[in-house]
């Protein structure tokens, strides 16, 4: 047991997967000698050689399409998209092939692969480096979409993603890369499809994933001062989604706020809110509310804190959960 970072845990997961399975290949832009711009692939080329970990031409559709071909030949590609918005050139390959090949061929051809996407903001990145793009993938049937919020999950979920028979879009919250925690690697945590209660509470449930999980935990901590005992659920795998854990929590607490860093409109937060009220309607004392990024292009570094859902915005929203059983005045008329 020792303190380590999410970046190191991801690196260890890649190294262990490369060591355990000859079929695993790690490639992308700058993942070789440089070890990736976030150093997630640091040392892998030196240790496993440049046939197992290598740089490619600068072309994301090329990288993902190449991975499709490698998977067809029986290999297990793990590719890195350098930043969220730079995965968009690969969107056709992802939506029309990666997501569909198993289905198109009645299961005869599967293309297990992991597409690693460092995503979201909070690191002062300039434009196009901070998009929250998980909803695009989550809305595309055939993809699994996973996002760790803890160091141990980073290791465990990435190992599981690499071993999974289906393509996994593995969304890595950049701002958590260098957050450190005690973790005993190789760690194995809950499997895909399981959400986890990170903090128990009785008064309301905060549902969060990826970069929003630490915000939820911090807000829950702060809420104690206001007399609220909040439960925090970490979604972990967006697809498949763990309805059971989320609904059980909300049925217990009777109130729910969904927190996501992404712009809200038609995002994963909307899906979670819609599911929760569908499934827990009679247990709810208030509507399921959402806290999300604003519906604007990701702002410049000096303005990002206004955009990002922070503790205050979460607490403001919790305050609107109709504790007095009165309708929200903001929405009586609109």
């Amino acid at each position: 047991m020792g303190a380590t970072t999410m970046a190191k845990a991801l690196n260890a997961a890649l190294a262990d997967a490369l060591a355990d399975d000859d079929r695993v290949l790690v490639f992308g832009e700058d993942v070789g000698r440089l070890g990736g711009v976030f150093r997630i692939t640091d040392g892998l080329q030196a240790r496993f050689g440049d046939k197992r970990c290598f740089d490619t031409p600068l072309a994301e559709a090329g990288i993902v399409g190449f991975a499709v071909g490698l998977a067809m030949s029986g290999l297990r590609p793990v590719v890195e998209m350098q930043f969220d918005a730079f995965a968009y050139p690969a969107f056709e390959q992802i939506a029309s092939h990666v997501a569909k090949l198993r289905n198109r061929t009645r299961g005869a051809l599967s293309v297990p692969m992991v597409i690693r996407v460092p995503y979201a903001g909070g690191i002062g990145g300039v434009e196009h480096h901070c998009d929250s793009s998980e909803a695009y993938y989550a809305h595309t049937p055939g993809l699994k979409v996973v996002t760790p919020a803890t160091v141990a999950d980073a290791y465990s979920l990435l190992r599981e993603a690499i071993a999974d028979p289906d393509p996994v879009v593995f969304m890595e919250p950049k701002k958590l890369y260098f957050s450190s925690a005690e973790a005993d690697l190789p760690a194995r945590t809950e499997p895909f499809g399981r959400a986890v209660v990170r903090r128990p509470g009785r008064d309301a449930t905060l549902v969060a994933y990826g970069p929003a999980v630490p915000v939820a935990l911090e807000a829950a901590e702060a809420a104690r001062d206001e007399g609220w005992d909040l439960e925090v659920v970490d979604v972990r795998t967006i697809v498949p989604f763990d309805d059971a854990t989320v609904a059980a929590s909300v049925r217990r607490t009777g109130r729910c706020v969904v927190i996501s860093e992404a712009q809200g409109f038609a995002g994963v937060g909307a899906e979670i809110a819609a599911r929760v009220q569908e499934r827990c309607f009679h247990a709810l004392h208030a509507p399921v509310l959402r806290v999300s990024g604003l519906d604007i292009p990701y702002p410049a570094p000096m303005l990002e804190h206004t955009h990002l859902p922070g503790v205050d915005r979460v607490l403001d929203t919790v305050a609107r959960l109709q504790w007095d059983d009165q309708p929200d005045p903001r929405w009586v008329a609109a």
Partner: protein
Amino acid sequence: MTTTPQAVRRASPRTRPAAKKAAKAAKAPAPEPATDPSAVLLPQAEPVRLIEADGTPLPARADYPEPPVEALRELYRRMVVGRRFDTQATALTKQGRLAVYPSSRGQEACQVGGVLAVRDTDWVFPTYRESMALVSRGIDPVEVLTLLRGDWHCGYDPTAVHTAPQCTPLATQCVHAAGLAYGETHQGRDTVALVYIGDGATSEGDFHEGVNFAAVFKAPVVYFVQNNKYAISVPLSRQTAAPSLAYKGVGYGVPSEQVDGNDPVAVLAVLTRAVAHARAGHGPFLVEAHTYRMEPHTNADDATRYRDGAEVDTWRDRDPIARLEAYLRARGALDDAAVAAVAEEAEAYAADLRQRMNAQPEVHPLSLFDHVYAEPTPQLVEQREMVRAELAAAAEEDGH
């Protein structure tokens, strides 16, 4: 970064020793690589042609030795069967048995030539237009037509027949082929990937990325552009301002050639060399075949809106099957009996297909949930339950 002009100018066939070696090796089934990649990048200025449109042989050439006559007879046989298949498929659209069919009539030399140039263990990456190529490769025609009949997407098992699903998103298969071929090499196998692609699709970014990946990773891929002059209605002049599509190779450091795509002998010769080049570890090769789509884009298209009959007629005179037949007859490699036998085989093939396509395929609504993931997600299990209940209710209603 500094290269002499020779590096990109094609050496004349007369003076290139490698080509001479290739000519000697021509009788072997899988000739040795005929090219020195650093010496040959640009295509020859004129498409390679080995027999005239009327079947008259042209002078033999050292760079592209003529394929063995048995191969040409087999080419002929498959082209005739292939065309009959194609006609039958078009007829099936009229009977409502196929939702849509993109014919490759007129492109028989390319469709079959490509298939004959590779081994069964090689991989073929077809587009929607390659139904003829796929049946030529021996894939069950009903499985080939599954996509177009509409009971499922891909009807065959790609891993069993080493053939990717027919690809509709244009040019995307260019990259898959690079990955597959590189992956095979990585695992010590000498598989070659043959990519079929149309003229229009070369304008897509994925063509660029695919050929470039193959070149950088020296992946054994042959990119085979069937330039049939149209992308649906859009003529070649709207796709490129280049002298020919084969000239794209040099930008990737990939040797290229152009060939008369209606000369079956030349197509097979050029592709055979391209495949040998790739298999020998010299990296990808780009071939552009000049051919013509005799039919509309699909049965649903109205080609009279954008091209006139006179143009189509010109190409009718360059029919690849008649051309090869004339050539083989003149060589004494084909006689009336053999032609009749092939025609009969083709008829039988079509009759069998017709009959098998008459049966309404069974489709299972609940199978919709089977292959989205290896195991359905809880969400899909829920949705499957919903559909199961709907089907049960409908069955009950029908029962009353």
